[in-house]
């Protein structure tokens, strides 16, 4: 609390009260801020300010003073009496600025003599720099047409950014493939490979194993009705290899690694690190995006295989324990059921999913705004975008390279 006293008008005994370090929990026993209006003569309005004018108390409204000024059109001069004024801080300044601004607008004379010491300096300071013109952004209501229009423009701009990003990423990739120096730190690549590979194993293990167990358990009940328990191997094998293995690892990686990429690059954007890279002549696309893309494209197929292994193991556990199938039978049936081509498609699909996850994460990071909230938005968008891309991509793969003949 910045308690100030008017030195001239108040006796010293009073100043001691407020000068002691006052505990904030027990507000000083001061009178609440108040203002009284008087007309010493027809052309003068006198504002008698009393009590404690601090932000921690209750304050009179400026609008009352403005009303008082407007109510007496004969008034040409505004004066102040602050003999009853206790502690004050910028709350009083705010009130006075409001009064002065209104009085100036009405061409009234303002007599600052009655104001406390220091106040005049503060008023000058606060009015020294005129408010910046046109800076106040109007928060007007927008019509439905405007909202749709702006959304359409945003969408177009977003699509443009997406295309530009994909193009740049492709060029960066091209630089790598044609042997021209795509500059990034190889230690970064190994770090990203570790993060997207080994570090992801525990969560992938857990989820694939559970997925295999669950599918086999639920499928077993259905297959038992036909006495076709042995086909649980087909069920697990095909669903893991053709669909679940690839999509589930991709979604795990979107939430785990794609989000991390968006947050890393987004924070670098906030810290101007990306600007620093550019001025060093390092293309952010090469330095930041390329190693991340490579890491995910390389690691995702491996994770896919690993997830299949664990999922099929989970299915086998159910087959052996619940359905009474021997492990040999299960493995033989599995090999017979899943052709190698399904794995090949699955591996390709995983690599594409890896690319999609890395692209979404990096793109949202690079296009991140410069605030903490923007980093959060970028992370969210990265995950959502990656999952949408994965599901759409999976659909396209399903149509172009179906794991088994469709139709007749």
């Amino acid at each position, binding site marked *: *609390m*910045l*308690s*100030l*006293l008017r*030195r001239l008008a108040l006796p*010293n005994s009073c*100043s*001691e009260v*407020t*000068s002691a*370090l006052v*505990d*904030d*929990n027990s507000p000083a026993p001061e009178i609440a801020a108040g203002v009284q209006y008087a007309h010493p003569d027809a052309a003068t309005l006198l504002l008698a300010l009393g009590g404690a004018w*601090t*932000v*921690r108390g*209750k*304050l009179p*409204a*400026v609008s009352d003073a403005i009303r008082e000024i407007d109510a007496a059109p004969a008034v040409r001069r505004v004066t102040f009496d602050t003999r009853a004024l206790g502690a004050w*801080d*910028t*709350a009083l*300044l*705010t009130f006075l*600025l*409001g009064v002065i601004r209104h009085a100036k607008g009405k061409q009234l004379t303002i007599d600052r003599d009655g104001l406390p*010491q*220091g*106040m005049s*300096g*503060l008023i000058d*300071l*606060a*009015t*020294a*720099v*005129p*408010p*910046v*013109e046109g*800076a*106040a*952004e109007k*928060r007007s209501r927008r019509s439905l047409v405007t909202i749709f229009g702006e959304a359409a423009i945003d969408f177009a701009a977003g699509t443009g950014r997406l295309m530009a990003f994909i193009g740049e990423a492709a060029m960066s990739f091209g630089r790598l493939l044609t042997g021209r120096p795509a500059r990034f730190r190889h230690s970064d690549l190994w770090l990203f490979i570790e993060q997207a590979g080994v570090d992801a194993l525990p969560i992938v293990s857990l989820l694939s194993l559970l997925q295999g167990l669950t599918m086999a358990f639920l499928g077993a009940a259905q297959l038992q009705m036909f006495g076709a328990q042995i086909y649980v191997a087909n069920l697990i094998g095909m669903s893991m290899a053709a669909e679940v293995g690839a999509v589930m690892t991709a979604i795990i990686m979107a939430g785990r690694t794609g989000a991390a990429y968006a947050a890393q690059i987004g924070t670098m954007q*906030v810290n101007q690190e990306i600007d620093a890279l550019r001025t060093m002549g390092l293309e952010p696309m090469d330095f930041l995006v390329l190693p991340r893309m490579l890491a995910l494209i390389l690691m995702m197929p491996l994770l896919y295989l690993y997830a299949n292994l664990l999922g099929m193991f989970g299915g086998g556990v159910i087959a052996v324990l619940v359905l009474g199938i021997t492990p040999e039978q299960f493995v033989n049936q599995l090999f017979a059921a899943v052709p190698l081509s399904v794995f090949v498609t699955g591996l390709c699909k995983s690599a594409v999913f890896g690319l999609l996850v890395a692209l979404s994460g990096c793109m949202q990071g690079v296009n991140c*705004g*410069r*605030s*903490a*909230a*923007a980093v959060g938005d970028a992370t969210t968008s990265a995950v959502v975008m990656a999952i949408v891309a994965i599901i759409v991509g999976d659909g396209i793969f399903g149509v172009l390279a179906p794991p088994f003949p469709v139709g007749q």
Partner: protein
Amino acid sequence: MAQSARGEPIITVEQLTMAFGSFVVQKDLNFTVKRGDIFVIMGGSGCGKSTLLRHLIGLQTPAAGKVYYGRESLWDAKPADRLSILRRTGVLYQSGALFTSMTLAENVSLPLQTYTTLPPGQIREIVSTKLALVGLAGYEDFFPSAISGGMMKRAGLARAMALDPEILYFDEPSAGLDPITSKRLDDLILQLRDDLGATIVMVTHELPSIFAIADNSVFLDNVKRTATAVGDPKEMVRTTNDEMVREFLTREGTLNEVALPAAATSSAASASSPSSSAGAS
């Protein structure tokens, strides 16, 4: 400002030792900040200036020693009491530390909304006043990302002043500012002290600022790991026997006696001379 209130101790540091684990940053610090002072914590890079500030504003626990606000010991107080002590202070962080997802007005009004019972309309008016005081009138709805570094610092100051604290802490207020802006910030600090009666504690190594506005100071030596000088820097530069202090305050002797401030009170005149010679060398 009532003169009787000035000069009484407002912050007292006793035998303060600061350490990170077993690494002692500074030991046995003793100094007193008086009400109405502009107190400077100075010293070379890495000597623990900012760490000392963090001990004063309750962010870091001392390894030993006491920090008193008035008669209350900050680190012996219960957490709730410590908060109420610290609510009498405002801090301007080195780069403003504005909340980037809030507008300037929202940044400044956050403490007012939290700790006062004022209606939203009056909070908005007070926020506008604070922004006007730091020369940012009309920038209420700007986001921190849309304004310059100097403006961010001033907006940070407006937020630090939101509750009109008794004590304002500044961490390197003029770092990264041009000489004119930094001079104006010094003037603003002086005016806040003179007109609003605030006590100012600042961490800085800007010699022009130190000579222009400081009343009292402590010098932290990063080799001896303790305070080697306490007092008015304008006196200190003449009277010190410590080689490091003299080198620091004279820029290794490149500020000659002529350029150094003549008298303790002529702050306006002294402000320009060290800065001009500092700029020339």
